[in-house]
């Protein structure tokens, strides 16, 4: 059932793959992997991880709450690195937005009538942007997030396999 001929160019997988590979090459081009010091490796690891998350979030665009939250987080992080003032600015505005939405969704702290507050909170911490979602939306976002994560893992595994040979 392998159909290499039917390639969906706009699938989530392909979008993520192209973006991630591009970012990967950029990271690799920046510093040759001659230095294998742990700090270097760690730094590169962080950058690669951020690139992976960013590519995934961009592939999903802003259609999902979690992707929007993740994009915002990444952007604010990069802003903070470049310019602390800008980071604070964007952080403030975003915090205001988040607070406002969380105030509107005060039901997130409520039991929601199903009694899964603890697990729901834990899930909210895992899924980016989950703090501002009620349980219903949270489950939706979780499902989509799981799907994207599995895609991400698949692609990265293939890349890692390819390169480690």
């Amino acid at each position, binding site marked *: *059932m*392998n*159909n*290499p001929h*039917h*390639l*969906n160019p*706009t*699938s*989530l*997988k392909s979008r993520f*793959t192209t973006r991630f*590979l591009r970012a*990967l090459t950029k990271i*690799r*081009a920046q510093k040759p992997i001659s230095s294998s010091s*742990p700090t270097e*490796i760690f730094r*590169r*690891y962080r950058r*690669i*991880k951020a690139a*992976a*998350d960013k590519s995934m979030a961009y592939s*999903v*665009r802003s*259609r999902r709450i979690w992707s929007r939250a993740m994009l915002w987080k990444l952007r604010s992080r990069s802003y903070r690195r470049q310019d602390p003032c800008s980071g604070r600015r964007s952080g403030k505005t975003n915090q205001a937005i988040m607070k406002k939405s969380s105030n509107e969704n005060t039901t997130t702290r409520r039991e*929601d*009538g*199903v*009694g*899964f507050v603890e*697990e*729901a909170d834990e*899930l909210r911490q*895992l*899924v980016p942007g989950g703090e501002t979602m009620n349980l*219903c939306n949270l*489950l*939706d976002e*979780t*499902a*989509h*997030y*799981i799907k994207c*994560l*599995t*895609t991400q*893992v*698949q*692609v*990265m595994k*293939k*890349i*890692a*396999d*390819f*390169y*480690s*040979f």
Partner: protein
Amino acid sequence: MDIGEKDKYELGKRDEHNNINYQAPVLSSDWQFGGANLTSAGMSLVPTTNPLAIGSSCASASLVDSFGSSLWEHPSNSQNMGFCDFSVQNGANSSNAMEVGKGLPNSLRSSIDRPFDMGWNAASAMLKGGIFLPNTTGILAQSLSQLPADSAFIERAARFSSFNGGNFSDMVNPFGVPEPMGLYARGVGLMQGPDDIFAVNGMKSVSVMESQKSKLDATEATRDAGLRVENRAKASPLENERKSESLMQPNEEAKQGTGGSGNESDEAEISSRDGGQDEPSALDGTGGEPSAKGLSSKKRKKSIQDAEIDRAKGGQTSTKTAKDSPENQQKQSMMINKTTGKQGSPASHPPKEEYIHVRARRGQATNSHSLAERVRREKISERMKFLQDLVPGCSKVTGKAVMLDEIINYVQSLQRQVEFLSMKLATVNPRLDFSIEALLAKDIIQSRAGPSSTLGFSPDLSMGYPPLHPSQPGLVQAPLPVIGNSSDVIHKALSSQLTSMTGGLKEPNQHSNAWEDELHNVVQMN
């Protein structure tokens, strides 16, 4: 299932759907999509009788998966937002004839947020090509409102509606309330009569539904006309029911939709399904009136009562078992069985414009809070069921708390895997030319979820999700095979992977061959 494979199916089937009528599997079997996809579940929800239902029988389960995957992968395509687009279109069309209330944007918003939710999205997306519907029906409805009522016309309109039923997303209120219909007076000039039949159509918006209700009340006789087309329409409302259910409607409604054991029950369901009937309903209404006169009012009442009974019974049963996902299927069948020949006093529900219309079940409190809570609880259980299929190894788990824990563990393990893989990529030495990236990208996209990790460490992700222990620094020192021995390495790695992998690999040989070929090319290039 491989996404690429799904793509192929999706591409292949897309053309088919335009012309073919699908048979949908029985509703109760839908929830078992065995971790394949939501879409398959959504698809399977379509009732068998619906000619347009996007059938995902066992044979076409892969097709469904392809729909689901295509649905996932075409996110804001007009196709993927299939049902959302349809509802928008429908809303646009219907708004010409009738005012579309704020309910439409509300439902749209929520529905847009869940494009992946159910397979019908893919179904609607699939059928989009073949079905000219939303615009056609809208125009048709408007023009037809002028036409004289005609029984044959009603049938045609019903056929159209059933046609459309497959495509329209559902902002449907499955509880189209027959009796209180009269209370809902919205200025929808077109709609007359039996919106039941048109409930079949996917074109449902809450506001439209209200107008429908008023029409329904006014021309109950037309509902009888629906009997004629009930078989055709049954699938649509059922399908719509599914959509609406997944979107925002409580489960019972869908169950009612899936039942339809008898004519009356079908009609009752259709009438209850109602919700935002568009012009097609109007067509039916106008056409049905004269022909419906011949039908006895007794049938009408019985159908209304049946609808109420269904809802009441379904509500009761569903509330009891709301938390047990495996019981939902039984509930559906129970609902179906109870639809005929029951008497009951429907719980009246004050008209709420622009909101999800929920009907209080028999014996249930009609407090708006409890109703809303019930709706919400059902939504949540719906989603939990879906997640259960998504997370591997969750089917045996019963109980929401445990399942939530499983889901949390799964998400954590996936995130840890991403971290681990990025660490691995950070340490890997790209000996190969970067021009390989294009080849690699293509191969990655094409190949399925095949061989996982390499030699030194193999967290076998297919076997559930064993959390990756934080021994990554140790793994960093794993020896990276020299490219000279690449072929041997490949062989060893692939064989080890194949032996360790479960489930995912159906044709590992092809994978290994593909990898080997590519690596050989790479080596030659270097």
